[in-house]
């Protein structure tokens, strides 16, 4: 194929200037875009009004079609259920028997817990949800793992609030529009959740891996404390996530690397619950007196 010759504007001065101006605009635009990226890195909440508005505009499309997609997903699940019915039945019966025993134990522990808490006069802050909304979409071609929630600042949702479902922790809010908001899922590479092992309370950090799994990092060096099937819950450290929300289950342990799967699968979720930041004080800047005394300690 011969190259198109129209790129060369010929001897016309005007056409040459036009082409040159085009390149000036393009390069200037790249520099402007790079500047916007730098601003976004320094202040991630910048341009939030613009991004929130875009979220609001595209949200009805997403919300409207979700029902249809779920219908198709359910058909797929139904077909495979039919073929697996016999083995699944046996497995479920076994599991029910095991879990009945555990429920009895759990009830006993619950009663004891209530008694002990009453003795300590421990007051738990009520975990009233901010909003309950549907997860309607996600970024499926980007390197980030984000999901869209069908409620925004009109329902009281603010940036930074944790989001959970009945199954476990989903993530936290990073962008809010008026009627929609964006969640950073726990499996995103930028998500770090302080967790603890249910079995013995070992603290760890659950860092997203970017492909739907979570890497577990222990805070202490030494033997890897995780086993396959271990469940992790939030520890409440850091003050953003409330404690004891289930987060993930360990699926593979390879030497130092521990891979876990989030318990709340955003693809299968209908509703998500947005909670208040657990300890709002933890996110505030230090008071002047504390800052001063810390400075003194540093010198």
């Amino acid at each position, binding site marked *: 194929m011969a190259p198109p010759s129209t790129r060369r504007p010929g001897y016309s001065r005007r056409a040459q200037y036009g082409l040159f101006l085009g390149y000036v605009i393009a390069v200037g635009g790249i520099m402007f875009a*790079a500047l916007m990226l730098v601003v976004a890195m320094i202040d991630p909440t910048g341009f939030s009004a613009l991004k929130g508005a875009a979220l609001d505009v595209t949200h009805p499309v997403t919300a409207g079609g979700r029902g249809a*997609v779920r219908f198709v997903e359910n058909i797929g699940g139904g077909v495979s259920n039919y073929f697996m019915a016999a083995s699944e039945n046996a497995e479920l019966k076994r599991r029910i028997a095991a879990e009945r025993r555990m429920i009895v134990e759990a009830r006993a522990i619950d009663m004891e817990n209530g008694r002990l808490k009453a003795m300590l006069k421990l007051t738990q802050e009520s975990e009233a949800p901010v909003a309950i909304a549907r997860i309607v979409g996600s970024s499926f071609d980007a390197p980030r793992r984000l999901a869209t929630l069908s409620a925004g600042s009109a329902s009281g949702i603010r940036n930074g609030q944790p989001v959970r479902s009945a199954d476990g922790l989903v993530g936290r809010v990073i962008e809010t529009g008026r009627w929609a908001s964006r969640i950073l899922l726990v499996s995103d590479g930028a998500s770090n959740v302080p967790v603890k092992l249910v079995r013995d309370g070992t603290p760890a950090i659950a860092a997203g*891996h970017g492909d739907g799994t979570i890497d577990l990092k222990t805070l202490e060096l030494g033997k890897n404390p995780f086993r396959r099937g271990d469940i992790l819950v939030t520890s409440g450290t850091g003050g953003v996530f409330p404690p004891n929300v289930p987060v993930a289950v360990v699926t593979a342990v390879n030497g130092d690397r521990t891979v876990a799967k989030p318990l709340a699968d955003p*693809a299968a979720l209908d509703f998500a619950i947005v909670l208040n930041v657990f300890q709002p004080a933890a996110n505030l800047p230090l008071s002047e007196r504390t800052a001063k005394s810390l400075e003194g300690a540093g010198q």
Partner: protein
Amino acid sequence: MRIAGSRRDVAIWGVRRQWVPVLSTLAASLLDTLPVVVTTPLVPDFAFLVLLSWRLLRAEMWPAYVALPLGLFNDLVAGHPLGQSMALWTIVFLACDLLDSRSGWRDYWIDWLVASLAILFYTAGGWRIARAMGSQMEFEVLLPQLLLSIFSYPLVARLVVALDRWRLSR
């Protein structure tokens, strides 16, 4: 077959000739609003593939700065950091211009090679920006998506060729 149409027909053809490429790219951006929830990066960025197909098919159609507003729209819809697609897409356009001015000819395989390099640059750029924004993700995670994108380029290119034929038909 008619050779010349009425004045109204000519106006409609003009609009169609100009806007089909832009609107098809915007539509591909809007695929991001589909109500699909995916936790693994697998699906190619169709907006970029459509844009690249148009650019490689009709080099003379767009000046390089057209990628700026299209990129801004993609950033807003997909929830990328603002400026990501704007910068990366325009850089790809400038590189294509440079290539066009240096190379004598292109065929199907060279088009695919150029597209593959552009997709690699775009994916790596997006990954680099995500890392700068605090993501700890490793590049290996994106390899399946990269391969899928490279192999879906010919399909998207075919679609764009069909659109182009319809765009220029009368």
